[in-house]
């Protein structure tokens, strides 16, 4: 499945995800992409080695940590629990966090052939995380971004000036990019969009 994924997050974005330094919506999109992409999971594992090495080499002036007295027994070994049945097309981290399935999304129509569903973020977090559905051939209004924006294709495909994006592909764009994604002519698309700042719609 993952072999067909051709578009990945910028490695600077993945580095910050591994570091725990991405804002919550961007981290959600990286997590969702990584759940679909074994290549990025392997890269994240290598990136985590960097964190481990730096943690071990940071100076620690006079910090001692007391060991608790009671020595607790280890947890028993447990096998991996696999979910039964056919997996939902929504990436596992999204279904786990929001308890949603693709067929149950309460879409809100926001324009001709465009629906969205906003996903809640932690209190005080800036930016936005939402699912968007484009009908075949329909387009999102031209917009720029007040920060990075990650768009992950969940079903169908979309294209814009930079090419075509299919299931599992992730588009990683900067604040200075303006784009106008168009849903695939046959299938349209459902995407997860994470934005650091507000969408800047062109009027």
């Amino acid at each position, binding site marked *: 499945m993952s072999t067909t994924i051709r578009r990945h997050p910028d490695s600077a974005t993945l580095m910050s995800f591994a570091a725990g330094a991405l804002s919550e919506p961007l981290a959600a999109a990286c997590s969702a992409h*990584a*759940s679909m992409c074994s290549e990025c999971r392997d890269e994240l594992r290598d990136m985590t080695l960097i964190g481990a090495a730096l943690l*071990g080499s940071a100076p620690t002036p006079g910090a001692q940590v*007391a060991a608790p007295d009671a020595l607790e027994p280890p*947890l028993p070994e447990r096998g991996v629990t696999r979910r039964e049945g056919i997996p939902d097309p929504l990436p596992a981290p999204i279904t786990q966090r929001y308890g949603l399935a693709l067929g149950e999304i309460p879409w809100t129509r926001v324009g001709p052939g465009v629906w969205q569903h906003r996903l809640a*973020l932690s209190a005080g977090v800036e930016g936005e995380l939402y699912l968007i559905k484009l009908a075949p051939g329909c387009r999102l209004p031209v917009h720029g971004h007040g920060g990075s924006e990650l768009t992950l294709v969940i079903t169908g495909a979309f294209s814009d000036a930079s090419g075509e994006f299919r299931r599992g592909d992730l588009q990683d764009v900067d604040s200075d990019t303006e784009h106008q994604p168009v849903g695939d002519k046959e299938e349209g698309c459902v995407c997860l969009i994470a934005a650091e700042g507000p969408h800047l719609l062109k009027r």
Partner: protein
Amino acid sequence: MPDLLSRIATERSDGAFRRLFEEFGPQIKHYMMRHGADAASAEELAQETLLTVWRKAGLYSPAKGTPATWMFSIARNLRIDRLRKEVCWQELSDETAEATPSEDAAPDDAASERQRQARVQAVLTALPGEQRDVVTLAFIDGLSHNEIAGRLSLPLGTVKSRLRLAYQKVRAALEDLK
């Protein structure tokens, strides 16, 4: 250094438990304090991290990375959850990855994992100072690209390219261990 963590998986002694706290407690406490925790809460978070390491040591497998990466992940996840009070999406994707193992050949023994860790350590030591600073601000201080750009008075693009360059070197150093 990683030897102690590897041994903890098999050696369940009181002595191993104390050495775990002596050796890694200060690093993790320091990490939490860099993220704004006061000394008392940093100590609590360090204890919680190490207790988790201890409790789950039996579940440790080299396929999930070195014991050191495992400890870093636990500390990072706890920091996101407790200090930033945000959803830890890294943990959610770890769980998913557990259920669907990578198709690429995972390094099959702890020795090769230690070798990978040593290579990364060597790359980081040899990194030009300007790249190392950016990588440290991301991994140890948890700063976003924009925050790093602000802190170092650099264009955003420069911050990103330094992160990319540092990763390219790590990747190249691990190439033949795949």
